[in-house]
């Protein structure tokens, strides 16, 4: 054993030891610049309005608005579905100036509202009709929506005395294939011809739901596009004997959830029904809390409601809400969706349906103030702390007439009326963390209607995309 060998071994051991110590330390910390999802304003939005009225006893108007006043660059047009080059009733290139045009028979069965560039963010459109005929009577208001692949409708009636038509519109340039699923009180309805319905590009299809599910009452209809995207709407017309008993568009509900808020009862309603739908495969146990202007309470008749799988439960809540502005907070052991059907008898029979909707955000949502109808905005929230809603009342030139900062009490429903003349619409915004739902109720001699106030498409999410490793 020589000294040289000992030195070599010593050095080797030292190097090995130091190496182990170094490796035992912290590894370099780094984070890959992974592609992040981004949220950007849409550069183009197309909204589908379901259809022009099929009879001469109905007048229909289209209300469209680009609420973003930041950008002045862009356009807002209304085009017929069948002929994209033809403007249905006009166009607008200024923000916050509504496009309020009548729709006639010549405008075809469906209208597309298109906004691009600076006018695209938050664009909102409504279609409202007033009918006074021997077969149809009442007011019907509905929002025009972007095509998507999943739609839910509650309170669909296809029984004797009611006519419900499902209007499917494909506003895209690709083919869509659609399934229609119907849930009734007795469970899922096996409806022949309801699956794999093809819908060509820029086409529309109207389906009589009585043909798919004859006799079904208070049903829930789900429209699911297995390919492509569609816009869906359901129009219901009721008669009592030979007397029209109202007409309305059934508002599209938010997807089922275990915690839902239905802004429901409207003042002066003679009858109110709550429909609860459990589309899942296991039983749902539901607890309801009524949110009235004075605060929450738990109706004993709405305790421990049991909904079988894939079924609809209908319960009368007239006595509970008492004709006041009421919202229902429903908690369930399974995903459910719900709606409240309000009926009025004076001055003529009419009904309105309200359902779950997306909450307000800081971006303004549009609530049209319709002529000849009283407009009330109702807000409900489940949180106990209360919050404020900012309401701007704007005229047809885009000028803000006044601004309210409305206090919404916690776990309560608060309503306000559009009382100022010249008001064309209201812009409503709130702290999104308050999860305030809003609805606009329209009441007049011709009838009643309720429509959810939801923010338009202000931002779209672009997923983070990166090359695969």
């Amino acid at each position: 054993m020589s000294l040289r060998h000992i030195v070599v071994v010593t050095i080797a051991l030292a190097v090995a030891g130091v190496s182990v110590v170094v490796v035992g330390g912290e590894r370099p910390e780094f984070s890959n610049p992974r592609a992040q999802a981004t949220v950007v304003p849409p550069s183009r939005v197309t909204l589908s309005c379901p259809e022009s009225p099929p009879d001469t006893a109905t007048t229909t108007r289209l209300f469209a608005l680009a609420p973003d006043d930041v950008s002045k660059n862009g356009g807002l047009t209304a085009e017929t579905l069948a002929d994209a080059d033809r403007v249905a009733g006009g166009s607008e290139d200024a923000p916050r100036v509504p496009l309020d045009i009548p729709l006639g028979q010549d405008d075809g069965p469906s209208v597309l509202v298109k906004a691009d560039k600076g006018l695209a963010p938050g664009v909102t459109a409504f279609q409202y009709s007033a009918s006074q005929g021997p077969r149809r009577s009442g007011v019907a208001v509905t929002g025009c929506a972007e095509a998507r692949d999943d739609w839910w409708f509650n309170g669909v009636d296809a029984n004797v005395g009611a006519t419900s038509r499902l209007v499917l519109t494909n506003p895209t340039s690709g083919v869509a294939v659609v399934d229609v699923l119907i849930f009734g009180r007795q469970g899922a309805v096996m409806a022949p011809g309801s699956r794999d319905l093809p819908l060509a590009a820029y086409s529309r299809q109207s389906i009589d739901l009585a043909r798919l599910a004859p006799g079904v009452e208070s049903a829930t209809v789900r429209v699911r596009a297995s390919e492509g995207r569609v816009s869906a709407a359901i129009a219901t017309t009721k008669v009592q004997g030979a007397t029209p008993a109202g007409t309305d568009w059934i508002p599209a509900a938010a997807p089922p959830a275990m915690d839902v808020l239905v802004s429901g009862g409207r003042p002066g309603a003679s009858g109110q029904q709550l429909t609860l739908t459990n589309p899942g495969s296991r039983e749902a146990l539901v607890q309801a809390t009524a949110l009235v202007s004075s605060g929450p309470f738990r109706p004993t008749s709405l305790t421990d409601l049991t909904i079988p799988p894939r079924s609809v439960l209908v319960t009368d809540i007239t006595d509970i809400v008492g004709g006041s502005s009421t919202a229902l907070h429903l908690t369930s052991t399974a995903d459910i969706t719900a709606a409240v059907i309000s009926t009025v008898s004076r001055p003529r029979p009419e009904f309105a349906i309200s359902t779950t909707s997306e909450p307000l955000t800081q971006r303004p949502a549009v609530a049209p103030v319709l002529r000849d109808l009283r407009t009330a905005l109702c807000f409900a929230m489940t949180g106990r702390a209360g919050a404020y809603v900012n309401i701007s009342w704007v005229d047809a030139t885009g000028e803000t007439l006044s601004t309210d900062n409305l206090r919404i009490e916690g776990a309560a429903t608060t309503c306000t009326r559009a009382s100022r003349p010249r008001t064309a619409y209201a812009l409503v915004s709130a702290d999104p963390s308050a999860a305030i739902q809003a609805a606009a109720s329209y009441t007049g001699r011709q009838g009643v209607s309720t429509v959810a106030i939801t923010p338009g498409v202000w931002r779209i999410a672009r997923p983070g995309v990166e090359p695969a490793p």
Partner: protein
Amino acid sequence: MSSDLSAAVSVSAVIVSHDGERFLPRLLDALAASSVSPTDVVAVDTDSSDGSRSLLIDRLGESAVVDAPRDAGFGAAVSRGLSALPREGSEQAAWIWLLHDDCAPDVDTLRELLAVATSAARVAVVGPRIRAWPRAQRLLEVGVTISGTGHRETRLEAGEYDQGQHDEQRDVLAVSTAGMLVRRDVWDRLGGLDPRLPLFRDDIDFGWRVAKAGERVVFAPAAMLFHAEAAARGARRIDCTAARPHRGDRRAALYSLLVNCPAAAVPWQYVRLALGSLLRAIGYLLGKLPATALDEVLAAAGVLGRPDTIWRARRGRRAYSTAETSAWRPLLPRWWTPYANGVDSVLGLVTALLRERSSAVASSRRQLRSGRGDPTALETGPVADEAVSLPVGAGPLALVASHPILALTALLTVAAFVATRGLHGAGFLQGGALLPAPTSSSSWWGLYTESWHGVGLGSDLPTAPYVAVLAAAATLLAGKAWLVVDLLVLFAVPLAALSAYAAARAIMTSQLVCLWVAVTYGLLPALTGISTSGHLGTVVAITLLPWVVRAAAPLLTTSSTARWRSAAATGLTLSLLVAFAPVGWPMAAAATLAAAGFLAGTGRVARVPKLLFALSLPLLLLAPWSWRLVTTPSLLLTEAGRVVPGTTAMRDAWQLPFGRVDAAGAAPWWLAGGLLLAAIVALLRPDRLARVAGAWVVLALGLATVAVLSQQTVTVPGTDAEALVWLGFPTVVAQGAAIAAVAFAADGLGRVVRSGRFGWRQPVAAVTAVTAVVTPVLGLAWWTGVAPAGDLDRRAASDLPAYMTDAMMSEARQRVLVVRGDEQPMTYDVLFDDGRRLGQESVLDDPPSDSLTELVTDLVSRAEPRDVARLSDYGIAYVVLPRPISGSAVAELDAQPSLTRASSNTARMAAWQVSLPAGLVKLVDPGATRPATQSRLLPVVDRLVDTSVPAGSDSRVVLVAAADADGFEARLDGSSLNRRTTDTGVAFDLGAGSGTLEVATPTDRSRWLLVQGVALLVVAVLAAPGRRNRGEEESR
């Protein structure tokens, strides 16, 4: 004349002497003692420089000695001798007996020859059985013929002993001129030996001519002649032919074949002999015999380049060629005989090597068992000549017993089968860092040889050389690329064990220790999880590392054989290793530095250049890829296979000394605990400290490399993502060094322990030995019992429907865009050819352009028709979203008019077909009136477009959807087209003209490959063991 035969048959013996003084006395004595004496004896001396002439005059008389020039050939000398004999009439002998000065007939040789010569009609030539002089038992010739390649066929094996197996008299094509008995009239009719064949093949040519003349050549087994073959063995200088005997021999062989074969076969023979000579020359080059290779080429050129000479010789032979071809064709060997002989030679060589090894091992064992000294003493004493050559320890069982590594390999192979039981079956092995192999070796060859690769959007980076190695291996396995990967990964343990054993045997003496090294080292790929995590590069490097050590050992030890050959072999094996695991090169550089210091310290500085030469070879042999390593050093930290993002090399750093990298399927750390303990204890053996210290230096080098690299990250090729460096190879180096340290200390330990007094050393040695032995045993049990699959899986190489794969391989060369994930971030991949396969990752560099990423983002979020048009510009014909699928993305794609749903397994994916023309190359004519003709795909075959195009508008362009397409060129009727770069590739302005359109990828890589091939050949020749020449063999 002492015999009765002499009265009936007259024989003239002609002796040709050329510096044969030392052989002549025995010849002359034999002639004197012959039972039948020749009628005349004449000797021709070709101006011998020794005392041959005087000796002949003394013994035969001056009148019987004829002088000839020194450069006279054998035939010319015989003719000169015959001219001194009576020319005609009764005095002329009927037979001529040709004798070389270095041969000696037996007593009855001439009698037996004459007996055969007179036994039948048409016997013109008779030849004796020729044995070696002085080894009397070894046969040299029993008649001779010539194969189609010109090889001299004797029907004898090398060194065959005469045991009566050739006692049958038979007709042959020819017999040697040594002892040849020729009928004089035939000799005269044929003009004797061909003067163009002064020394070589004159006998075959003459015999062939005799046969063609309708006469017979007969082998007489009872006639015996001994021949020293002095000229052939280099025992004397030859002056009658070129200075290069091999050249002369080959020239004579080719000449003989061409002038004697049937006329119809001459063209075929020309081609066959030209190609054969080329192959033989290459073979000689590989055998490091460049001069012989040159002889081969020059001989072929000299004969094949003079068809006039061949024609004249053939015309001369026509004068007496009366026999049908069928009469003499049976005397020629079958066409496959030379090839069968070649196979026999190789098998014989292998068998000889094994037997030699068996014999050595058996002798060694006998020595150990008997406890006596030199085992060769057992073989002393008088033994028969034949007995010396009998193999020792023959038979399968004896072979296995004498080669325990065979049994160990068999055991480990069975264990590998068991341990990988979940990974057998159909499909491609993949997972972790391992990509699926291509469908055949040709894909790998294509990837390696082409200048532009259709990977993703395209790449012009040089392919990693490991692809060529895998391609070569796959070619040997009938093109089955998957089989190569399966063997390397699933059977990494027996392969590594064999390699370790080979290296250990070269530097250690104890076979038990070598076996321990083999099994302990062999288990490293399995126990560390390197194989089950799919790190093919490290797996192969583990197998190659022992070979590098074995090759480098002579450069470092005191061996006197540290030659350039060792340096070349070291460089060659190191190049292979670096091809798979580039990090091996900087580690080798550090080791070279340490070794240079060691050599300088021990006074062997002269070996340092050899080490540097070995170290530099990978840079040369792996160029131009190795230049990428220089310009992009981070590539040194990658290896063959994928870089797995987020790979962490160590979960628990303290496990590092136990060789546990954070790999899927790794064994518990404590299984290697005994190894580390033993490596530390190994330092306690003072008499082996030098070697153990060397191993510890390497161990420290491995750990230091791990320490340095553990702080580094590496970019995942083809992306912007970073990953921690994979530390598998340096960890294995450290583990291997620990094994070596233990083995060095254990080698011969038993003798030391037994010889010393009982003390602390014996218990320590015993405990260490038990611990070291338990380590591989436990490891083997764990491996076969648990059978970890790790990240590996066996499944189809691609989830894509077959028609999409066909589209990618079609003439349109379409691409498929695969977008994965319903969560953030989504990832995309552009597939080309047969999808992402092993090897393709080596040509990925920069991530795809931002514009493509933007396009994919738009597609899955807010698609518009123009986005689909841009997809087609990228050559993307299909879009695939494997599940889980983003519902919104599916809806977006559904909404596009130019995307139509394509059939697919909807449970696994959603797919769309781009309904616009999408392919690698397309012709766009904006001025076309019909939309159908505005854009059309052009067929691509072997990366080339060669098609005719009709006239069109001025604005026509040819779009090539290829990234890194700088080298692409397009020509219309040979005229180059103007090229522009676009964001999806390149565009060539075609214009309105019609003609033949050619679009080609760059070809400069072929020049590099040629240089690389030549360099590899040269180094391989340098590294190969040299072939000893025949004379050297004889002297041994």
